[in-house]
């Protein structure tokens, strides 16, 4: 039987706020930044109307937003924040502390280019900059996915064997400000689904005092970092089980990756977030012309689904990885580097990189078609002309 739901027209930002309303966290500490603003504004209205029980803290910066959220989470409550771009960059120092203290904070991030020069539109340079911060990363294709993954992220973060913070990313403006019909499930069902947060060592437990954040030198720091790596490893094992519960409820098939017409494909692109939507229609068109094209969408960037990627790509003849961020290594974007590393020693398939869409530059179906035609050529000749390409830029 399908669970109760209503379809409501919502933007990606509103979908994140709607998920937060149903999560009803004890604390939200946030600072406004375009294009995340609509999340905090929508949520602030929920608080003003008494729809949620949340104490909302209007902090004076994102550095304080993350610090305050960290303090609240350590105190022993469910605490959330949300940000974009420069805001995430300002949080950067505290991101590492949140994951190092093993605090299960869930944070919607609306992807936006980093300055300079200043730009308010979408690319992934902000969250890719936080790639190694010990947070789990989920990238969403549309508002529905934002809503469902924000809710699921709570259970992933708070799993007693995981205890890691999670950022749930969506594309600035493209997803955050576009209205879609979003299936919103019943409040009570969601409440039951996520349950209550049971902290292990709450700071507010005055009978069992704990010290958070002691000095940790050569004799212990390394072991603590090693435990963190282990937590990400455990997360990799546990997430499918956690997602299956949500999949049953939402009627979805969420996993680390998602494939589109990849089963019998000869060539494929690997991409994340809203671009995957555009790619689907291109692939359908190519199939009409008997071109066996497919797509692999990366939903979880952390933990990185290396095995899943290798298995899904095994039978391909050529692959293009699409990166909406530059890493300035002359070796391609961050997604490319990791995908290529995962494939190395496992399969021998030519892989090329396309860096696209920086600062919100649109990616059209024509761009994706052109990428596919180059990949097709690589598949037939076996020759890679340019390892790293820039799609849609004036050279």
């Amino acid at each position: 039987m399908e669970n109760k739901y209503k379809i409501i027209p919502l933007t990606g930002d509103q979908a994140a706020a709607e998920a937060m309303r149903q999560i009803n966290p004890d604390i939200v500490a946030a600072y406004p930044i375009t294009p995340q603003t609509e999340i905090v504004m929508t949520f602030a209205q929920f608080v003003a109307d008494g729809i949620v029980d949340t104490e909302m803290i209007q902090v004076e910066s994102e550095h304080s937003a993350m610090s305050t959220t960290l303090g609240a989470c350590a105190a022993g409550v469910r605490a959330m924040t949300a940000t974009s771009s420069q805001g995430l960059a300002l949080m950067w120092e505290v991101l590492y502390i949140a994951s190092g203290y093993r605090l299960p904070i869930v944070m919607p991030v609306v992807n936006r280019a980093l300055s300079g020069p200043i730009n308010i539109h979408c690319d992934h340079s902000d969250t890719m900059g936080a790639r190694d911060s010990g947070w789990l990363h989920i990238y969403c294709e549309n508002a529905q996915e934002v809503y469902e993954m924000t809710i699921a992220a709570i259970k992933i973060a708070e799993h007693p064997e995981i205890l890691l913070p999670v950022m749930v990313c969506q594309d600035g403006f493209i997803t955050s400000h576009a209205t879609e019909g979003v299936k919103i499930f019943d409040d009570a069902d969601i409440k039951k689904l996520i349950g209550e947060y049971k902290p292990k060592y709450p700071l507010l437990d005055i009978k069992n005092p704990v010290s958070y954040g002691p000095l940790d030198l050569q004799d212990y720091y390394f072991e603590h970092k090693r435990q963190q790596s282990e937590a990400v490893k455990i997360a990799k094992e546990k997430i499918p089980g956690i997602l299956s519960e949500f999949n049953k409820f939402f009627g979805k098939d969420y996993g680390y990756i998602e494939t589109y017409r990849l089963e019998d494909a000869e060539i494929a692109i690997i991409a994340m977030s809203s671009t995957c939507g555009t790619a689907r229609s291109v692939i359908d068109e190519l199939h009409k012309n008997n071109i066996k094209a497919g797509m692999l969408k990366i939903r979880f960037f952390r933990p990185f689904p290396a095995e899943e990627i290798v298995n899904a790509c095994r039978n391909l003849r050529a692959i293009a990885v699409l990166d909406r961020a530059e890493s300035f290594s002359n070796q391609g974007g961050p997604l490319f580097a990791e995908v290529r590393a995962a494939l190395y020693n496992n399969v021998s398939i030519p892989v090329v990189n396309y860096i696209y869409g920086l600062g919100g530059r649109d990616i059209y179906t024509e761009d994706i078609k052109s990428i596919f035609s180059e990949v097709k050529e690589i598949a037939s000749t076996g020759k890679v002309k340019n390892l790293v390409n820039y799609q849609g830029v004036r050279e």
Partner: protein
Amino acid sequence: MATIKELSQIPERLSGGHRLCAGCGASIAVRQVLLGTKDPVIIGGQTGCLEVGTTIYPYTAWKTPWIHNAFENAAATMSGVETAYRALLKKGKIKEDIKFVIFGGDGGTYDIGLQALSGMVERGHNILYVCYDNQAYMNTSVQRSGSTPFGASTTTAPAGKVLQGKSQFRKELTEIMVAHHIPYAAQATIYYWKDLVNKATKAFQTKGPTFINVLSPCHRGWRYEQENTLDISKLAVETGFWPLYEVENGVWRWTYKPKEKKPITEFLKTQGRFKHLFSDKNKQLLEEIQKLVDNRLDYLEKLCSVTATEQKPE
């Protein structure tokens, strides 16, 4: 004011055996402030001597919940802790009356943490912020801070052949906090322990954000023998270098004023950081410092008399 006997019954929250220096003003300040309440206390710290000296994993000297996040964000971190407490109180999930206090050094308070502190008090969190002011970045080897006084030699503003230590004046942080119109702000120092315990008691009892700036001499940075910490704290008050006052709902009041003000040189000459000021060529600097102290005291006098005659704001 509680009697010494009563105070002695308040359990120590900072245990002995921590690794702060013998003669450290900061640990004395912490213990005196914590005598200001019998209620359970949750403490926020920031990166610095106090954090490093009291918590080296797997040890902690804190017998009460304690949290350190980073250098500049103790006020933001504790804003989250205190709000979480209020949220749980409202939901009936917690019953105890808990007090919240932050101990930050001058680097983390005057400089890098000023924004978070300003945000915390503007939002009205029920937290006492104590600055243990030792007038430089002592944890990283005595670098100049916004609290370092004019003429003091530090490792980043040293006295040399051309320059005579710090060439700027220190900022008046307590006044900055008063400008936030918080219900209680005060200045204190550890020699006058009754004065400090009284102020802490008042601050803990006040609803809303409160602030106490505690001059906490550091023998490593100020360069004097470790047994002189309390004498130097006393001289700071007797010379007018560190006036003891409080500001309650906008009304300024001296809490202790020495009958006779000693010349500022009595304070300066006890410390190596001011040694260079006593060379012949720097005579005019000493005069300038004396003038600064006198002007400052006159100004405080005016504030006290003007606000005392006015009605206390409701």
